[in-house]
C-alpha cells in the first residue's frame, strides 16, 4: 500500500470539465478560418487495382473547385502510414477499398462532394486476398514485391528487416512437451475491430508565408509535428500543430495522418486554408482498426496444472500497409520453462490494421486464456488456483518487475467477486438460461522514458505548467496539474496548464502506450525539484519576475521491467435458445501503482472494460469475400456498445509501491481492455460447457455451439 499524499490520490474533477459540458471546448473541426476551403477524398472502390488513367478536367471545371491532387501530380510520401514500404498519399496500384485516389478542395463541402463524382478513373482490377493465412499461401497475389509476409520491424528503425516471422524462444519446447503429462492443442480466431472514436478525422491547414499551422486531432502533437515537417521537407520551426481538445483515438490518431498532409498540400496549392473532413464511413475503413488474428496453441502441463511448454503460431492480417507491429501477446503473463511464439504479420487487401488500445493483447489474451481455462477444466483445477500457480513472477521468467501486484489482484479479486461461492462446473446448469463465471489476467508495460515539462512561477504564486499533452480523454491535463501541485506543495487552484500547441509547449511523448503519466508526469516532478531549489535560493518572484524550470529526464529501469497488471472476473447469463449473452457482474482489479486521480482512473477502467465487451460480443468489420468490399462500416453496423448494453463495472485498485514514475504511478489507460475478451469467453464456456473459439461471440455462434 502506498503512503497518502496531499493532492495526488484524491478524486478530482477534470480541470477542463466546464469547457467540456458547456460546448466551449474547441475540437479541431470547430476551428474556422476566413476564406477556408473544404476538401474531400476520392477512394478506390476496388480492393486491389492498377490505375490506368485519371481524368480530372471535368471536376476542375466544376463550380467552386480550386485544386485536385492525384498520384500524378502529388508524390508525397506519408512515412508514418507504413514503416516498411513507401506509402504515398495517393498510391498506384490501390490496395484496399478506401485507398485514396484523389483529394480536392472547393469553396464548400457540398461542392467538393459533387465534384468528386466528376473525376474519371480507369482501373485494371487485380486479384485480391483478405485473409492473412491465405495471403501467405503459394500462388497468392503479391500485394507488395517480395511476398505477403511483412518483414520484422523495429520501431527505432525505418529499415526493412528480414522476411521472417517474429519469433521468441526460451527453453526447449520438445523437452517441455516430453516432460508433460498432458498436451493440449487448439486454435482461436479474432477479427478486425475499429477504434471508432467519436471524433472523426479532420485536418485544417493554414500557411502564413512559409509557416504551416495544422489543427488536427492527434494523440501526440510532438510526433505529429515531427512527421509533418519530415514528410513536407520543412524545418521544425516552420510547422505548428495545434490540438486543444481531442475526441478520442484509442491508438488510431498517433503520429500524423495522411489527411494532415493532404490538407497542407491543398492549402499550399490554393493559397487558402483547407479543412479536410473524413466521413464516419471513411474513418472506419480508411484509417485503421485492430488486426485480425488466428492463433494456434500447443500447451504441455503436469497433472497438477504446472505449465511445462507453450507453443503459439499466429497470423496477423495487417491490411496492405504496415503501420504497426501486429503482435499477439498474452503468453508472457505465465511462467513456463519452455516457450516458443512465432507471429506472421501478413499483407492483405482488407482495411489497414494497426494500434487499438492495448494493441497486441486483448486478442492474444483471448487465445491463451481460453486454452488455459480449457486445461484447468480438463484437469478439474479451479481457474483461480490455476492462475495463482502459473502467472508470471518475473518477466519472461528472468527479469524482475519493478513491482507486481498481480498475485494480490487475483487474491483480492477472487474474494471480492465471491468466486468460490459463484463457481460451478462448466455446463452443469439445467434449463435454457445459464449463468457462468470466468476470469482472465493481463497487463501492459508501464515503461519510463524521455519527456519534457516547463514550469513557470509568477509573483502571484501561479504555477504555469507547459506540457505537450493533448488529453485524448484520459484526463491528462488534470493528472499533470495534480502531479505539479503535489510536487510543488501548492493548491490545485494555483496551477494553469498550457497544452496542445507545439509553439507553446516542449516535447512530450505521444499519448499512446499508456506513457504520458510515467514520462511527462515524471518530467514535471524533476522540473519541480529544480524550481524548489531556485525558490530556496532566490525567494519567490516579485512584480514582473518569474522563475522558470525545465526538465527532460530520461529515466532508466536498471535491468528491471515495469508493468501494470489487471485481473478481471465476470459473470454472464447465456440464453441458449436465442443466443444472447448478458453480463451480470463485472469486477476489474488493477495494479497501476499509485493512482494519481481515482475519479478519472476509475472512468478509464470502466470504459476499457466496456470497449472490450464490444469486441468480445459484437464487433467485427465484415467483408464480402467475392468483392472485397467492407459491409458494415459505421456505429450501427459495427454494433458498438450503447447505454442499454452496458453492465455495472466494479473497479478495485491494488496500489503497489513502485520506485519509478511520478510518485510511483504506473500505466492506467490500456490495461483495462486487455483481459476482457478472455474473461468473457471463459465465462460463456462455464455457462454452456462449449467453447466459442472465434470472435465475436454472437448469437449464431452460441446457438451453433449448443445445438
Amino acid at each position, binding site marked *: 500500500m502506498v503512503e497518502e499524499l496531499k493532492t495526488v490520490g*484524491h*478524486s478530482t474533477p477534470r480541470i477542463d470539465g466546464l469547457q467540456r459540458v458547456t*460546448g466551449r471546448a474547441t475540437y479541431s473541426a470547430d476551428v474556422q478560418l476566413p476564406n477556408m476551403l473544404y476538401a474531400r477524398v476520392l477512394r478506390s472502390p476496388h480492393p486491389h487495382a492498377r490505375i490506368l488513367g485519371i481524368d480530372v478536367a471535368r471536376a476542375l471545371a466544376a463550380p467552386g473547385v480550386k485544386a485536385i491532387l492525384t498520384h500524378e501530380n502529388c508524390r508525397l510520401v506519408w512515412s508514418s502510414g507504413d514503416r516498411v514500404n513507401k506509402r504515398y498519399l495517393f498510391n498506384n496500384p490501390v490496395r484496399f477499398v478506401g485507398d485514396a485516389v484523389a483529394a480536392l478542395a472547393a469553396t464548400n463541402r*457540398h461542392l467538393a462532394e459533387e465534384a468528386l463524382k466528376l473525376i474519371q478513373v480507369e482501373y485494371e482490377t487485380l486479384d485480391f486476398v483478405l485473409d492473412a493465412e491465405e495471403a501467405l499461401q503459394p500462388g497468392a497475389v503479391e500485394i507488395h514485391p517480395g511476398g505477403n509476409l511483412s518483414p520484422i520491424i523495429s520501431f527505432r528503425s525505418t529499415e526493412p528487416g528480414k522476411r521472417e516471422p517474429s519469433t521468441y524462444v526460451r527453453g526447449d519446447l520438445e523437452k517441455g512437451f516430453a516432460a508433460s503429462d498432458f498436451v493440449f492443442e487448439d486454435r482461436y480466431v479474432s477479427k478486425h475491430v475499429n477504434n471508432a472514436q467519436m471524433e472523426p478525422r479532420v485536418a485544417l491547414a493554414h500557411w502564413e508565408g512559409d509557416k504551416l499551422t495544422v489543427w488536427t486531432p492527434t494523440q501526440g502533437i510532438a510526433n505529429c509535428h515531427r512527421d509533418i515537417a519530415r514528410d513536407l521537407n520543412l524545418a521544425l520551426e516552420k510547422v505548428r500543430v495545434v490540438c486543444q481538445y481531442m*475526441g478520442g483515438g484509442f491508438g488510431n490518431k498517433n503520429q500524423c495522418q495522411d489527411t494532415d498532409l493532404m490538407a497542407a498540400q491543398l492549402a499550399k496549392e490554393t493559397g487558402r486554408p483547407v479543412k479536410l473532413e473524413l466521413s464516419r*464511413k471513411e474513418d472506419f475503413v480508411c484509417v485503421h482498426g485492430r488486426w485480425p488474428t488466428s492463433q494456434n496453441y500447443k500447451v504441455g502441463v503436469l497433472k497438477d496444472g504446472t505449465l511445462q511448454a507453450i507453443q503459439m503460431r499466429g497470423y496477423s492480417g495487417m491490411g496492405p500497409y504496415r503501420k504497426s507491429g501486429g503482435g499477439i501477446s498474452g503468453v508472457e503473463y505465465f511462467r513456463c520453462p519452455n516457450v516458443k511464439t512465432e507471429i506472421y504479420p501478413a499483407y492483405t487487401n482488407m482495411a489497414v490494421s494497426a494500434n487499438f488500445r492495448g494493441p497486441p493483447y486483448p486478442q492474444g489474451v483471448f487465445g491463451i486464456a481460453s486454452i488455459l481455462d480449457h486445461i484447468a477444466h480438463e484437469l478439474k483445477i479451479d481457474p483461480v488456483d490455476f492462475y495463482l500457480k502459473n502467472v508470471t513472477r518475473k518477466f519472461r521468467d528472468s527479469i524482475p518487475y519493478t513491482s507486481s501486484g498481480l498475485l494480490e489482484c487475483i487474491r483480492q479479486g477472487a474474494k471480492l467477486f465471491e468466486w468460490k461461492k459463484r463457481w460451478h462446473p462448466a455446463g452443469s446448469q439445467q434449463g435454457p438460461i445459464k449463468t457462468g463465471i470466468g476470469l482472465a489476467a493481463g497487463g501492459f508495460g508501464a515503461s519510463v522514458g524521455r519527456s519534457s515539462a516547463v514550469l513557470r512561477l509568477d509573483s502571484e504564486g501561479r504555477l504555469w505548467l507547459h506540457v505537450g499533452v493533448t488529453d485524448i480523454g484520459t484526463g491528462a491535463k488534470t493528472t499533470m496539474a495534480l502531479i505539479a501541485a503535489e510536487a510543488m506543495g501548492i493548491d490545485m487552484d494555483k496551477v494553469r496548464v498550457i497544452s496542445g500547441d507545439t509553439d507553446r509547449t516542449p516535447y512530450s511523448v505521444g499519448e499512446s502506450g499508456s506513457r504520458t503519466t510515467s514520462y511527462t508526469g515524471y518530467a514535471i516532478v524533476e522540473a519541480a525539484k529544480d524550481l524548489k531549489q531556485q525558490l530556496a535560493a532566490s525567494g519567490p518572484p516579485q512584480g514582473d519576475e518569474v522563475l522558470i524550470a525545465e526538465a527532460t529526464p530520461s529515466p532508466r529501469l536498471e535491468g528491471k521491467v515495469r508493468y501494470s497488471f489487471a485481473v478481471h472476473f465476470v459473470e454472464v447469463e447465456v440464453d441458449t435458445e436465442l443466443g444472447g449473452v448478458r453480463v451480470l457482474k463485472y469486477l476489474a482489479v488493477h495494479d497501476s501503482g499509485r493512482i494519481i486521480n481515482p475519479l478519472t482512473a476509475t472512468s478509464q477502467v470502466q470504459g476499457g472494460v466496456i470497449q472490450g465487451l464490444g469486441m468480445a460480443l459484437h464487433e467485427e468489420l465484415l467483408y464480402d469475400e467475392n468483392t472485397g468490399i467492407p459491409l458494415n462500416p459505421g456505429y450501427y453496423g459495427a454494433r458498438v*456498445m450503447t447505454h442499454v448494453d452496458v453492465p455495472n463495472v466494479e473497479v478495485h485498485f491494488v496500489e503497489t509501491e513502485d520506485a519509478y514514475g511520478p510518485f510511483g504511478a504506473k500505466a492506467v489507460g490500456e490495461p483495462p481492455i486487455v483481459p476482457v475478451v478472455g474473461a468473457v469467453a471463459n465465462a460463456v464456456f462455464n455457462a454452456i460447457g462449449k467453447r466459442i473459439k472465434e470472435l465475436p461471440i454472437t448469437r449464431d455462434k452460441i446457438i451453433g455451439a449448443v445445438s
Partner: protein
Amino acid sequence: MKPISRRSFLERSGTGMAAAAAIPALEAPTFQSRPLPAEERGREIHLKVNGKDHRLEVEDHWTLAEVLRDHLGLTGTRVGCDRGECGACTVLLDGKSLYSCSYLAVWAEGKEISTVEGLAEGTQLDPLQEAFIEHDGPQCGFCTSGQLMSAKALLNSNPNPTEAEARQALAGNICRCSNFNRYLEAVLATSGKGGSRG
C-alpha cells in the same frame, strides 16, 4: 476515495475557466451568416436558437447541425457520424431530442431549438452540467453535448426517471470512451435532486 463537495468542484471548475481564459485566443473564429455566392441557391429561414432569433440564407440540403456549427458558430453541437447513428449532434427541437445531422435546416423554420450553449443561464450551470463534471461524465468529451441534450429532454418529460428509463432515453448517444455508467450516474443524481430546471 475523498468525496467531492459541490463547493470544491465549483471552485475547481472556476479554475479551469480562468486557465482557459488566460490562454491567448487562437485565431478568432469568424462566425457570421454570409450572403451566398451565385452557385449556391439559397432560401431564407428564421430559426429561434437558445431564445435568440436568427434570419439566415440556407440551401435546401443543409442539415441543422451544419447550420448551427458553421453559420451560427454553435460548435458545441458535435458531428460524429453525420448519419444518425451516434447522437453527438443531439439538440432539442421544441423540447424534444433530435439528431441535428439528420434534420434539414429548412424543416426547422419557426421552431425553437436548444443547444448545449443554451443550457447554462449566465454563469449558472444547469444541474445536469454540474453533475456531469462531478461524476466525470466526459472523458474525451466529444459525445458530451449530445448526452447532455438527451438527458435534458428526458428530464423535461420525466423528472424522476428510473435507471432503465434513463438508459433507454440515452440509448441513441454512443460514447466510445464507454463512460456510459458515469453519464447515467450523473443523470440519476440530477433527477434525485429534484430534477433539472426548465
